[in-house]
């Protein structure tokens, strides 16, 4: 018996999360329904995430289970820790705001836990079926939480849009998977890699079409242009803490899945997928940067910012190789921190009667709440890629592999896009510091403040060697384990 359990030990983090979700669901269903109880469940859900994180750290040798469908390697562990951190951070942000919006339901933490479990399956996927199952588990839970304020027309609309378009993208992904299966006769990444590495595989339309459809499906999940259209609407419509969740962990998971797919299943057709990635990267960087100009809603702005960021994260992937994967991982790690920090600030834009989302409401924030203004300014500077903040290094490590691989013009477009992007980030800074002050916001809540402070420390302190070096090294180890 113990030996059997020992064999499944690499699944422990997922098991902890899934079991935790079910126990909490039961607790929620059988205990009285009130805010105190829901708070308790939220705390317990956070504890579950922490426990899963501890379990990941404690894992032994890398392993492959279920005929390679579940891969536990350094890459998976690195990304899973990121995902857990992103999910946990967003969950902390969700407490008070969801309570204030009157939609504080115990299902929320349970669904978020299940979504996290889905993401963890995704990043460990070594088989097309595991890929799809993880993706659906994650997506379905996210569709629901996006619409969780069911009496709010915007939230419902966001959930519905996300669902319909997500279903379409799933259809494309499945079609691509079936084409690949038709080509290789197997769904495992290793098998596909073997079949696709024969000479002339890149000329095979079945393979190339399967590749395209599959990548389109994943591009939707990372909201790369032109499969990004849902992003601004869903970000704006969903309750803000949920938006924070959507913007952080799922992006990392989907990006990691994409990396693993192209690097382990399709190394034989790199010239082909490289073109697609380059196209997606350029389109995302440009549309993300240009689309954000003129936005007045801060959540929509963050949506475009997120689109552009996904474009930057795709740049090193286009370069390929372990260094490219490392670039993606570093970028996503820093992206999570900046995003959660920025959303912590957005959640602190409160007046009587709820959150305000208009950027102009930030006017003169520096005079009424200097800490918040400073923190948001730092996140904006960081997103704009100004040294010595973390965002600069993210871009540095993203563009470097592309330059090394000879994709100069991709790096050039990236730098141009980030110059354009700097405009709208700086606009916010300008509004906060130089415009006439409007009515002050309510005091920042402790939980938001904690997240903002933590993210701020990381963004400012990234330049310190004991912050940057371990991350870079861990990402390097993780990337090297992709085979």
């Amino acid at each position, binding site marked *: 018996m113990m030996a059997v359990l020992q064999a499944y030990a690499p699944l422990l983090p997922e098991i902890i999360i899934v079991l935790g979700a079910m126990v909490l669901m039961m607790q929620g269903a059988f205990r009285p329904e009130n805010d105190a109880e829901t708070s308790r469940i939220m705390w317990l859900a956070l504890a579950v995430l922490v426990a899963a994180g501890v379990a990941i750290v404690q894992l032994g040798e890398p392993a492959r289970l279920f005929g390679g469908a579940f891969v536990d390697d350094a890459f998976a562990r690195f990304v899973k820790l990121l995902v857990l951190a992103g999910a946990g951070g967003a969950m902390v942000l969700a407490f008070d705001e969801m309570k204030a919006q009157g939609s504080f339901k115990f299902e929320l933490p349970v669904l978020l836990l299940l979504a996290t479990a889905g993401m963890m399956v995704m990043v460990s996927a070594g088989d097309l079926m595991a890929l799809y199952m993880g993706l659906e588990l994650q997506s379905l839970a996210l569709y629901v939480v996006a619409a969780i304020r069911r009496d709010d027309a915007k939230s419902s609309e966001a959930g519905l849009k996300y669902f319909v378009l997500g279903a379409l993208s799933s259809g494309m992904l499945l079609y691509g998977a079936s084409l690949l299966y038709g080509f290789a006769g197997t769904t495992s990444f290793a098998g596909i890699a073997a079949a696709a590495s024969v000479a002339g595989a890149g000329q095979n339309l079945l393979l190339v079409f399967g590749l395209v459809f599959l990548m389109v499906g994943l591009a939707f999940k990372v909201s790369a242009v032109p499969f990004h259209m849902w992003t601004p609407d869903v970000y704006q419509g969903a309750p803000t803490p949920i938006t924070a969740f959507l913007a952080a962990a799922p992006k990392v998971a989907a990006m990691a899945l994409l990396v693993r797919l192209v690097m382990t299943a399709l190394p034989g057709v790199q010239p082909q997928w490289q073109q697609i990635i380059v196209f997606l990267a350029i389109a995302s960087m440009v549309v993300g940067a*240009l689309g954000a100009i003129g936005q007045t809603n801060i959540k929509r702005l963050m949506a475009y910012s997120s689109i552009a960021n996904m474009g930057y994260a795709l740049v090193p992937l286009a370069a390929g190789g372990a260094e490219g994967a490392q670039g993606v991982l570093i970028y996503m790690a820093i992206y999570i921190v900046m995003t959660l920090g920025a959303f912590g600030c957005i959640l602190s834009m409160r007046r009587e009667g709820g959150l305000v989302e208009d950027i102009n409401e930030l006017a003169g924030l520096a005079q009424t709440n200097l800490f918040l203004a400073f923190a948001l300014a730092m996140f904006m500077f960081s997103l704009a890629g100004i040294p*010595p903040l973390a965002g600069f290094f993210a871009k540095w490590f993203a563009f470097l592999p592309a330059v090394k691989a000879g994709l100069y013009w991709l790096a*050039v477009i990236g730098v141009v896009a980030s110059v354009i992007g700097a405009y709208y980030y700086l606009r916010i800074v300008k509004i906060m510091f130089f415009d006439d002050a409007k009515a002050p916001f309510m005091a920042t809540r402790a939980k938001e403040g904690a997240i903002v402070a933590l993210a701020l420390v990381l963004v400012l302190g990234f330049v310190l060697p004991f912050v940057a070096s371990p991350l870079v090294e861990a990402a390097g180890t993780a990337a090297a384990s992709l085979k």
Partner: protein
Amino acid sequence: MIYKAILFLPLIGALIAGLFGRAIGHRAAEIVTTALLAIAAVLSWIVFFDVGFGHTTARVTLLRWVTSGNLDVSWGIRIDTLTAVMLVVVNTVSALVHLYSIGYMHEDPSRSRFFAYLSLFTFAMLMLVTSDNFLQLFFGWEGVGLASYLLIGFWYKKPEANAAAMKAFVVNRVGDFGFALGIFGIFFIFQTIGFDQVFAAAPDMAGKTFNFLGYQVDILTTLCLLLFLGAMGKSAQFMLHTWLPDAMEGPTPVSALIHAATMVTAGVFMVARLSPLFEHAPTALEVVTFVGVLTAFFAATVGLVQNDIKRVIAYSTCSQLGYMFAACGLGAYAAGVFHLFTHAFFKALLFLGAGSVIHAMHHEQDMRNMGGLKAYIPTTWAMMLIGTLALTGVGIPGLAGFAGFHSKDAIVEAAYAGHTPYNYAFWVLAVAAFMTSFYSWRLMFMTFHQSPRWKDGHGAHGHDDHGAHGAKHGHDDKHGHDGHGHEPHESPLVMLIPLFVLAIGALIAGYSFKEYFIGHDYKAFWAKALYEGPNNHILHDLHSVPKWVAWTPTIAMLSGLALSYLYYVLAPGLPAATARAFRPVYLFLLNKWYFDELYDRIFVRPAMAIGRFLWKGGDGTVIDGTIDGTAATVGKVTDRVVKLQTGYVYHYAFAMLIGLAAIISWFMLGLGGVK
């Protein structure tokens, strides 16, 4: 240890003033930062003599940062003669500016913040000049950019100051873009970003090419040009100069520190520092020369007609930076750095003097509202006079002169010795020297001589038609009538002491150091800090130019002085008459060759328009979708794609399908390498 002290004392000062400024009070913040800077300045001089004459060089590794693959980045200090020169310039001027600011800013309610910024800037600048790899250079580069943004926008309640700060930042980003690409390229080519390793590998790279869009492009030339783009941004060279005059909205001590002595010279420093690279890229050097000469000329022409006392000096700075670049481009790096060195003294002196004038006039900056101040602020007048003599390069060839005389004449001579096509560099620089003399003396005469115009408000405009363009009028009126009930007064001692010190520098810095910087001892002095190719003898050649060449700048200077005296002292009606006679030329110069307007048309408005289009077209309006079904032309298809952010799910789904079809078709049509 002494190096670390020099580097970190300003940072400590900045932190104390910035974080605890409110707790310890303004006075304490001022004293702490100024004292720390003064110590750093003294230490810098020690290092300077130690390195320059004792020939010690040093590499200090402070911190390993990231080691990953073949990327090894650590934070180290590189001390050689070039660094030592820069240390002296930066710390001396900075310490004096700190001291000066105590007097100049004594009415400002957030002085401690100001001092924190000043010290922070100094730290960033020190980072820049002590860097021993490209990433660190970039760090310092961006750091001074940030500090400059903060300082220009220090009076953030002024909308112009805000706009100027943004403008400085954005224009610099353009340069930094090239700079960053250059660093990427360096890493790609050399697999390292440490200076020593890159310089060691540079000779092997000379003349090699890479394929770009079917053209064979020289690698080193490309890299050097990209890096030079960064230098152009920082040093306000032609095309990227537009931020510098606007940056004068910041407090005057800031202008003296950042926009005269230190930050703007970072570009020159970089070219000198990277001389081992540039020496192997002759085409890039030609570009550097051309841009430098063009800037020297262009900025001087604009300086002729400006009325704001600080803007005149700003354009003068721009022009002098052009001289420095021209020298570097010709291979006379030592001459460029020498001019940088002397220029720091006399230009800071002029700026601080101008600050003293502005202080005396209660923050009036328009020279049309000054005049006759010599009687009221004689000390300032004397100091400004020394600065002007140094800037215009007064001296006797073959003997001795003010600081600028030695350095600038060396550059003009180098321009002759450098054999540019038609000797264009020499002639244009000589003409620029003439104009420099003219506008410098014009400034002196309009400010200190002539009859006072500040007593009767704007009555002076009648006899000097420089007020022809209306924009300034409102400004004048505000100050003109009752703002100056009392007479101009001399500045306090705390502001005058820096002037005295700088004046000494402006007097002797040229004569006492010329033998070391560019004279017989230059090889020993610079050691390996500056590199010269085997065929580069320009520093030797410039001493053997014909007599008439050596006299040319002096003659240009004297004729500029004479013309200025004629225009502004003997016949004060002449300027207006000239302006009327050559009105298009006058307006062209007054509007700075219309660069701001041009950029507004070319860059700012289209960018705004694109943004607005994507926003309004994309999100703002829900399109009704009444496309005539039969006439769905391609144009309309693309139109729809852009406007697709409508909120309709089926539009979104459609965009996805189109994207999919596009990628599929790409491969299907064989464009993606699939038959």
